[in-house]
């Protein structure tokens, strides 16, 4: 099989054009899109997450690796669709009502995509009913709520209650995160999971969905 180490290296180093070039070369050499993901992107982004957790990488490094991954996905998405491969799970993400901060949410989106999840990003200042509407429109396994401000944390609870009121609470796992959020707070509002960092969110999402691989054939 074609060696994917140069692709992994390019993703880890956040070299966007080198990453897409390596992905194209791998596909030309017969690597299946699914293998490119599970043996190229997923381990590379896992390494990026590890380096971030260890303090070797900082936010710009994480962002550039995420961008490289995103560009590869642009190439892979139509090919994966042709093979009938499904993402591990579908996640809807957003920063809750009243909160306009996006860096944490963007990092989580990038890490989840790198981990093989399909992500729908609803943006910032997302009201509870918009989260519910998104799930009604396109059923997902996980809803991710982000907040940076202590004043907007209550919107997380309101969003969870909106899912309950809509009769959808049992159909989705809800995970929360952001600077002021703690496990204690997550438990108190009835969230299913809390992650302290963007990198750790991938593992959390896998636990919540009972999956351990990047993509399901």
């Amino acid at each position, binding site marked *: 099989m074609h060696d994917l180490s140069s692709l992994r290296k390019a993703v880890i180093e956040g070299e966007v054009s080198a990453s897409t070039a390596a992905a194209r070369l791998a596909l030309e050499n017969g690597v299946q899109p699914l293998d490119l993901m599970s043996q190229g992107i997923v381990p590379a982004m896992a390494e990026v997450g590890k380096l971030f957790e260890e303090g070797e990488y900082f936010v710009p490094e994480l962002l*550039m690796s995420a961008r490289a991954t995103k560009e590869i996905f642009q190439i892979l998405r139509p090919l994966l669709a042709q093979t009938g491969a499904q993402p591990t799970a579908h996640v809807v993400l957003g920063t809750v009502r*009243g909160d306009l901060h*996006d860096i944490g949410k963007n990092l989580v989106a990038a890490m989840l995509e790198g981990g093989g999840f399909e992500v729908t990003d609803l943006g910032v200042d997302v009201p509870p009913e918009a989260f519910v509407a998104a799930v009604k429109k396109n059923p997902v396994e996980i809803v991710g709520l982000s907040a940076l401000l202590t004043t907007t944390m209550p919107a997380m609870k309101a969003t969870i209650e909106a899912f309950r009121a809509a009769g959808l609470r049992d159909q989705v796992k809800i995970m929360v995160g952001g600077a002021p959020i703690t496990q204690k707070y997550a438990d108190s509002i009835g969230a299913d999971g809390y992650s302290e960092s963007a990198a750790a969110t991938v593992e959390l999402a896998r636990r919540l969905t009972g999956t351990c691989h990047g993509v399901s054939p």
Partner: protein
Amino acid sequence: MNDQQWNTLVAAVRGETLRPLPTAFIIDSPWLPNWAGHTILDYFTDDRVFLEDNLRAIRTFPETIFLPGFWSEYGMCTEPSAFGSVSMWGEDEFPFAKKVLHSPSEVERLEKPDPRKNGLLPFVIKRLQHLQPQIEAAGHKIRFAVARGPLNIASFLMGTPEFLEATRTDPELMNRLLDIITDFLVEWVAYQREVFPSIDGIMLLDDIVGFISRRDFEAFGLPYLRRVYSADVAVKFFHNDAPCKASAPLLESAGINLLNFGVQHTLADMKTWTSNRIALVGNVPPRDVLAEGTAEDVKQSVGEILSPIEDRTRLIVSCGGGMPPHAPTENIRALISAVEELTR
């Protein structure tokens, strides 16, 4: 800040032995108006509310130092507004500055604002000028020129992820952006000093420093901070409550001599990383302990952060960051009295 408090602050910066250790807190709109029973928007828009809330704080806690003291601010909108950023307000919400640069190349068209005329900056100055007689009648003076730091302003002008990515994809343009912001900041600080001759300190707040590596800090942070802090003042105060292991060893070379940091690091580590040459302001956990804990939790936390510290020079006890929203009076009193008791 009154004369005695200022002298204590300067003594701490100089490394004098102080018993008991001083306490100090950064107080601003996330805590003060709600603590005093007002909405954030009333605090921003009504000079009487601003004065009343600040006077109430200094009279409730006369033993502690409030930094910068009578801080005239409009949250994160203050400096970005001068660059044309739209400010978004809620009755009791933190204001938000909308970005004005939608791609790195737009830096080319960015003009340096005039701090005397642009955005909310004349309002910052006028508020303090109007209230100066009452502030001085209360025994206090305006001691600090205050601004958000260059990286923080850049992140509001562009969006944080966009700015941080652009340091990789368009480093020259980002250096150009930071040059423009720093030219403005130097003038903004000079203008505040010109209007209020009692100013002998500079306070910059920049959490974005905590998101980048040492190498990036050397390229995109240090040279700019150094320029702003090059003014001849006694106290050069920096706030970054995001991680600061990467930047801490370099802060002294920026001219910084007083630092408020977060809860990611211990006082002992920070003393080591700064070679005990910067006075540290910290670091009881602001949210989990000062705002949400009990008075007993606060007392215990003070003991825990101080007990490993043998050399207690250049140390001011505070929380790790600004005063958090909803920190109650009894917990603040508990912190102050625990420090007095433990460091007498």
